[in-house]
């Protein structure tokens, strides 16, 4: 079975400072990793994914994530935070397949990011 851990319930960062939202995972086989963002009263929006290749993945809105296989981590980063980045961030791992190939996502519990003006 696969799992995702987001150790921080909340991250506070000052506007303009770099931000990091942490994620570690456990999965058998190759990890396919995703980050989604959820704004209040909205659905989940896809930010970026890691499938293979370069360990640094770039996504929407200036976000990037670094895949570290030895540490089984996939931390989300942004060089300079904006107040509008304040939202709930979810890390997810793709199911490694139980034969049916539906590849449902297993999510972490989410991290609330607050960017302070």
């Amino acid at each position, binding site marked *: 079975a696969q799992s995702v851990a987001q150790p921080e319930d909340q991250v506070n960062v000052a506007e303009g400072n770099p931000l990091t939202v942490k994620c570690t995972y456990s999965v058998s086989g190759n990890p*396919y990793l*995703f980050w*989604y963002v959820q704004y209040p009263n*909205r*659905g*989940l*929006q*896809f930010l970026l*994914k890691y*499938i293979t290749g370069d360990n640094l993945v770039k996504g929407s809105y200036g976000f990037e994530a670094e895949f570290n296989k030895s540490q089984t981590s996939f931390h989300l980063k942004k060089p300079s935070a904006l107040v509008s980045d304040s939202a709930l961030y*979810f890390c*997810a791992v*793709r199911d490694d*397949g*139980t034969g*049916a*190939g*539906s*590849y*449902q*996502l*297993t*999510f*972490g*519990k*989410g991290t609330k990011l607050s960017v302070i003006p």
Partner: protein
Amino acid sequence: EPEVTQTPSHQVTQMGQEVILRCVPISNHLYFYWYRQILGQKVEFLVSFYNNEISEKSEIFDDQFSVERPDGSNFTLKIRSTKLEDSAMYFCALREALEPYNEQFFGPGTRLTVL
């Protein structure tokens, strides 16, 4: 990014009543999913649907739940006899192609409140 709509945006129902939640994809998709998010908790997988049949389901998806795509367009989740603990946000998600690493695109969700 594919557009996904869900109706209704908010549904209030009495315990024991049946509800039907709808998902309308704008473009063609192969895989459909339902997830739910109880307030303050993580997003949980319910069921996946491919080629007009259930592909996988979680232990949450018991006999009270069913899914179908009745007209080849709408994708519905039915809860036959709602319980208080069914109160949650329900998200439909779609995946466009067979490649397993394609991302899923989520709808805005339906907030279900069971009284």
